[in-house]
């Protein structure tokens, strides 16, 4: 989508995303110095986004898209740190794959690195006390993925309002392309994120405890 966003929107989304990245880098440094034992898990969170956003998966709408992989990082380390990870993934894809782009980077960081992780983070925290751990993680990662593509649709609708019906009309059109295609992918992302959490929790519950993530169902070490 390189060059498809008018310059004014390029500047707008860059301006909106930059503060989050700066705060995210600061937060990342803070976590690494306060809890150096969490570094491998930070690597896992970034790597998970790397893997999932590289998988172009066919969907029921007859087109293909890819998940975001930001749910794990967002639930574990919060949205700000996840923004930085997303920026790295998006930069790789923009420079080496001509997927996304430098002009659309700000907008993509906003949808994948900010809105998605924020949704995942809040959904997890809202559901954690009323639903089980598995349901909370699954729902959070699924809705975070979906929110990313709803945001993309909205960003395109703002830049390209329909001559008749305006932004809302365009939003429905772009949602039909992005959000609808994303539904089965988001469910897959939710399922895989839940599994990753369960496996790592079983292996290394102490690192998760630092970030207040516990699954009562997981048996603790004797």
């Amino acid at each position: 989508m390189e060059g498809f966003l008018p310059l004014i929107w390029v500047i707008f989304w860059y301006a909106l995303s930059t503060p989050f990245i700066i705060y995210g880098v600061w937060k990342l440094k803070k976590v690494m110095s306060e809890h150096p034992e969490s570094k491998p898990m930070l690597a896992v969170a970034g790597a998970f986004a790397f893997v999932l956003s590289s998988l172009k998966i066919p969907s029921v709408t007859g087109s293909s898209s890819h998940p975001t992989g930001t749910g794990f990082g967002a639930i574990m380390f919060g949205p700000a740190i996840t923004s930085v990870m997303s920026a790295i993934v998006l930069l790789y894809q923009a420079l080496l794959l001509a997927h996304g782009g430098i002009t659309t980077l700000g907008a993509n960081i906003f949808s994948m690195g900010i809105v998605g992780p924020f949704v995942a983070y809040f959904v997890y925290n809202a559901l954690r006390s009323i639903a089980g751990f598995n349901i909370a993680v699954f729902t959070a990662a699924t809705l975070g993925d979906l929110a990313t593509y709803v945001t993309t649709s909205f960003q395109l609708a703002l830049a390209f309002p329909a001559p008749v019906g305006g932004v809302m009309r365009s939003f429905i059109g772009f949602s039909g392309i992005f959000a609808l295609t994303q539904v089965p992918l988001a469910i897959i992302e939710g399922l895989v994120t839940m599994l990753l959490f369960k496996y790592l929790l079983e292996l290394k519950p102490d690192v998760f405890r630092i970030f207040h993530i516990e699954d009562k169902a997981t048996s603790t070490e004797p």
Partner: protein
Amino acid sequence: MSELRRLTLIVVILIAIIGFLTAFVPHMIGIMPQWGGADAAAVTKIGEISGYKPWFSPLWQPPSGEIETFLFSVQAAIGAAIIGYIAGLYTGRKEAKRGQP
């Protein structure tokens, strides 16, 4: 069966069902699936709305579809290697702590 194994099995089955539906649902609702990228569909849509032409092109593009696929695979491989290494490291430490081989 442990909870983790049962959960893994459920996830695998659910993903298989989604894969099955993906293969058959489009034909059933009358779509001829092309499995093209959603981005390309959005570009077409932008053209329908406004006839907008991009004002900036990628600095570098993979010279062919094969090379693009290769670079996507490298991305997945880097991520998978890191996750596998760390999961293995933790498994090893956990076993060492237990005193099991």
